[in-house]
């Protein structure tokens, strides 16, 4: 498998549970990178803390496994300091949108050329299945034995409103779309967000009686549609998949070069 050139085989089998969606994200990510034929020496993966964040150890890129929620802030330092590097930031939903919510919106606002992958499994898996800002109302979790009353964020709308110039959503069931969207996000010159629904059969699935990994994948299939599908009109509860935002906006590092030019002229 060509993807083996992009992973650190000595750490496999990986530490994720059987059927964890994050492994499928890893699979899609390495296929995307392989198809883009990016020089591994120019690839940096920056992650925070959580199950999702362990992805950085498994890929043979420059890998920076940081603290909880702050991966985008570290990544901003990497990217602005050396803009020629491709910077990919996989995050869990809690990592990206709870503790890291502020960094998420500000990275989007700056439109810095970083690829953010939000691996949304609606739970804190690493700590044992507590509810997350993406769990939504009526979900059981180890910290919500009587089910949740908290609303969830809409990651796509949040990223769009904050100024991200590429925003997409898919699921780990839709593996072809997954690697295609990751490819487009990496190539896009600006802050790009791909929200990826990913299953946690161990905690979210079990607590919420969704069955095993296969059952949860089928839910992704049944509860999502491509953007613009007629099915959405009949069933507004369906979540759309695809590219929501794709526009050309000034990229931060390039804009900074203009600051340097102005400073030198002054």
């Amino acid at each position, binding site marked *: *498998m060509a*993807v083996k050139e992009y*992973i650190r085989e000595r750490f*496999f*089998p*990986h530490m*994720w*549970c*059987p*059927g*964890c*969606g*994050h*492994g*499928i994200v*890893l*699979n*899609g990510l*390495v*296929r995307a990178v392989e198809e883009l034929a990016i020089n591994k020496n120019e690839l940096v993966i920056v992650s925070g803390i959580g199950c999702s964040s362990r992805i950085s150890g498994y890929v043979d890129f420059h890998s920076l496994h940081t603290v909880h929620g702050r991966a985008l802030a570290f990544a901003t330092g990497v990217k602005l300091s050396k803009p020629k590097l491709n910077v990919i930031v996989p995050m869990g939903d809690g990592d990206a949108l709870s503790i890291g919510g502020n960094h998420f919106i500000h990275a989007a606002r700056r439109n810095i050329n970083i690829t953010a992958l939000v691996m949304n499994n609606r739970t804190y898996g690493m700590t044992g299945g507590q509810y997350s800002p993406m769990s939504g109302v009526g979900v059981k979790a180890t910290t919500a034995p009587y089910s949740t009353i908290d609303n969830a964020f809409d990651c796509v709308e949040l990223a769009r409103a904050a100024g991200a110039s590429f925003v997409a959503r898919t699921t*780990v*069931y839709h*593996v*072809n779309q997954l*690697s295609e969207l990751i490819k487009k996000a990496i190539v896009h010159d600006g802050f790009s967000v791909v929200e990826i629904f990913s299953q946690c*059969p161990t905690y979210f699935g079990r607590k919420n009686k969704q069955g*095993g*990994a*296969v059952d949860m*994948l089928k839910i992704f299939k049944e509860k999502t549609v491509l953007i613009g599908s007629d099915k959405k009109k009949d069933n507004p509860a369906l979540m759309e998949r695809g590219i929501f935002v794709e526009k050309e906006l000034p990229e931060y590092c390039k804009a900074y070069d203009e600051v340097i030019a102005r400073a030198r002229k002054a």
Partner: protein
Amino acid sequence: MSKKKLKDHLINRDWCKGCGICVAMCPKDVLVLDGDEKAMASHPEKCIACRQCEKMCPDLAIEVITEDAHGKEE
């Protein structure tokens, strides 16, 4: 472009955690879990080399080897 034909399923038994995703998602029922809860191709002759199993495997444990009409491995 000639159609790809299956040559082999390379299944890394050390990496496979037996989640059964490949078994369930294969459109042609090629794969099963064996007695050790590891994926194996019980009906390789039915395989259409769609690579769904390879792409959906969370353990990166499956590789579908194909060959073209001239028997060239890809």
